[in-house]
């Protein structure tokens, strides 16, 4: 499926390049007539939204869009204000509107029903296909691939700490600051853990939740609690610099999310897993220009440059990390390494060979097929070695 997707992207680019744009059913819109709307949960001070804004900027640069052609609404909550914002953007003539937060989805569906001529694209959601609306789309990057790689970096750091005698093998315990206990976060920390485990087999992990996407104080407190519990490395799936701040203060290495954390934690930050949303925004706007259909469920990963890990902090990572990272990345890209390979994890001591959810069998050919039947992450199994503490 991923291959056909790449093919589709290549084809649209090829068609556009030769200038022979002739869509069968729809007219394209010239770049100078485009109007794009974006709805953000936060603002530029919050990593997740900053990454989306950077993606929009990249898209604008690619197509040479003017500032006035892109209307961005920041700090839009997951309530009726999201519908208001979407409807207002449509009123202002936007032909394509992006919503970025999980809870925005139902409001975008409401707006999509009301404005059938406007394309609505929602990041991290899962209801576009079942909504029955042609103009509703979901998109998400395969962030689990980047998280796995960042886990490899963490695992190597743990090995170094064991070799130096700072900790014993049993003490190799990762603390993970999660936002909410559902599939998106579970898939993320499991891939991170499996990456670490591929390097450091004795590693265990403790996950605590802040029940918020972006709260500096909660994330900092959560990381402090994990360190007090004996965790010797901190990972995160929450959007602020709270966790790295606590890690830096405690002298514990950490792996961030969304943005490079080296500035916040110069001695502690190893790397961060990150999204390059520009890949999608460029793709979706290209579809508008070509007059082609936007995919219902779009995903892309390391191979397409949609996810990445930020440059390693040479001061903090274990020796030889870069070489291993390069190798693992190329294995994921060529498909020889599957992040959720069932040989690498167990549930209650047993290897899973089947996992059905909503009538779809996710496990086949020896691995869990993450994000292949829908763009939103589906892996929601708590595996051995991870303690997910829901309070």
């Amino acid at each position, binding site marked *: 499926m991923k291959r056909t997707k790449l093919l589709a992207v290549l084809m649209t680019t090829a068609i556009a390049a030769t200038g022979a744009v002739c869509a069968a059913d729809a007219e394209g819109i010239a770049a100078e007539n485009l109007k794009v709307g974006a709805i953000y949960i936060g*603002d*530029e*001070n919050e990593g997740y939204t900053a990454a989306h804004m950077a993606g929009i900027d990249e898209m604008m640069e690619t197509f040479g869009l003017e*500032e006035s052609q892109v*209307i*961005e*609404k*920041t*700090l839009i*909550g*997951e*309530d*009726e204000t999201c519908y*208001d914002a979407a*409807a*207002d953007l449509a*009123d202002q003539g936007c032909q394509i509107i992006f919503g970025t937060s*999980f*809870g925005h*989805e*139902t*409001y975008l*569906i*409401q707006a999509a029903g009301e404005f059938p001529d406007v394309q609505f694209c929602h990041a991290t959601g*899962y209801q576009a296909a079942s909504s029955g609306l042609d103009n509703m789309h979901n998109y998400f990057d395969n962030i689990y691939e980047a998280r796995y790689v960042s886990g490899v970096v963490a695992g190597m750091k743990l090995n170094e700490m064991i070799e130096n005698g700072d900790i014993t093998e049993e003490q190799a315990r990762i603390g993970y600051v999660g936002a*909410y*206990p*559902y*599939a*998106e*976060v579970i898939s993320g920390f499991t891939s991170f853990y499996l990456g670490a485990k591929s390097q450091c087999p004795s590693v265990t992990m403790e996950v605590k939740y802040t*029940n918020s996407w972006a709260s500096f104080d909660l994330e900092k407190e959560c990381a402090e609690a994990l360190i007090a519990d004996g965790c010797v490395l901190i990972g995160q799936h929450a959007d602020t610099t709270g966790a790295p701040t606590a890690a830096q203060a405690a002298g514990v290495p950490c792996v961030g999310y969304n943005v490079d954390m080296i500035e916040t934690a110069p001695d502690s930050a190893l790397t961060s897993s990150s999204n390059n949303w520009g890949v999608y925004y460029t793709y979706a706007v290209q579809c508008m220009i070509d007059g082609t259909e936007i995919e219902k469920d779009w995903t892309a990963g390391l191979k397409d440059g949609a996810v990445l890990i930020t440059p390693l902090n040479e001061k903090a990572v274990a020796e030889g990390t870069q070489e291993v990272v390069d190798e693992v990345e190329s294995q994921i890209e060529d498909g020889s390494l599957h992040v959720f390979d069932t040989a690498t994890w167990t549930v209650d001591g047993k290897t899973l060979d089947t996992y059905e959810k909503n009538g779809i069998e996710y496990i086949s050919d020896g691995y869990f097929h993450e994000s292949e039947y829908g763009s939103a992450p589906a892996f929601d199994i708590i595996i051995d070695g991870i303690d997910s503490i*829901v309070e």
Partner: protein
Amino acid sequence: MNKEPMFHMSKRESITLGKRIMIYVAAILLALIVCAAVIVGLVHMNPLGVYKAIFDGALGSSRRIWITIRDTLVLLCIAVGLAPAFKMRFWNIGAEGQVLIGGVVSAACMIYLSDKVPNVVLILLMLAGSAIGGLIWGLIPTFFKAHWNTNETLFTLMMNYVAMQVVTFCICFWENPKGSNSVGIINQATQAGWLPSVAGNAYFWNVVIVTILTVAMFIYLKYSKQGYEVAVVGESDSTARYAGINVSKVMLRTMAISGAICGIAGFILVSGSAHTISTSTANGRGFTAIIVAWMAKFNTFIMILIAFGLVFMEKGATQIASQYGLNENASSIMLGIILFFLLGAEFFINYKIERNRK
């Protein structure tokens, strides 16, 4: 050498309505000038452009007009609910929680009863349930105050946090998918429990309900015996007792009304606009409404103007922030400036400044 200051101030005995309005108008003009100065200083834009953006943000399209009206109605409804409590000098800081409880009861009815009863019955149940929820939330601190003279300011404030926890608890059962903390739009397909559109207008019933409450509260406070009792208790407990008023009874009755109306505001939010529930459903309106109620001196018709003014400026400030690429915090700064001048106007209404004569 004892130099006398140039001015002195004294408390006004009374003030004419005309003079009061003049002071408010002056305050709003000053606020607009300072706001524009700040924006022009930040982005070097034409100040007239700034005013146009404020107007556009609040009233620029028919959708924006209706959103402004919708938000004004909710703020007004809460302020109307707070009016009798504050007139009684009962410091009900708990509107936020009373609204949330009203909202959570409405959401519960929408989720559990939508396929069991006809829509009209469902909506009436939601209305009644939210009023009872808010009433109970208002009565708990009042009961303690009436019997053990506990401090109602702290008690009602703390009840807000309890209400937020109740909402968080309920979301654990209603969230979709599990763990996401997001309830999403309730009954999106059937629209069961949504206040129905009338002639294409989704907010018709919001207008009707809040208008009825506003008029009824005005009459209640001004012309009813109970309203008079509220005023007497507010002036002085001892006077009220001397006059043979059962202070505890008046207190409980008044807070029951206050809480119930705030609960109904929660119903209007959930059923009439948000169609979801979250801890931010009330979104600080319970606190903003205190300013509205106080500034209007509990006159519910003046509250309409003040609530509209606040929402108008809020929408305008948001528009400026998005139009000029400023951070949303810029709109908070502007709201702060506006509130500073409006609350400052209170001083000039209560006191007069006179020049000292030699």
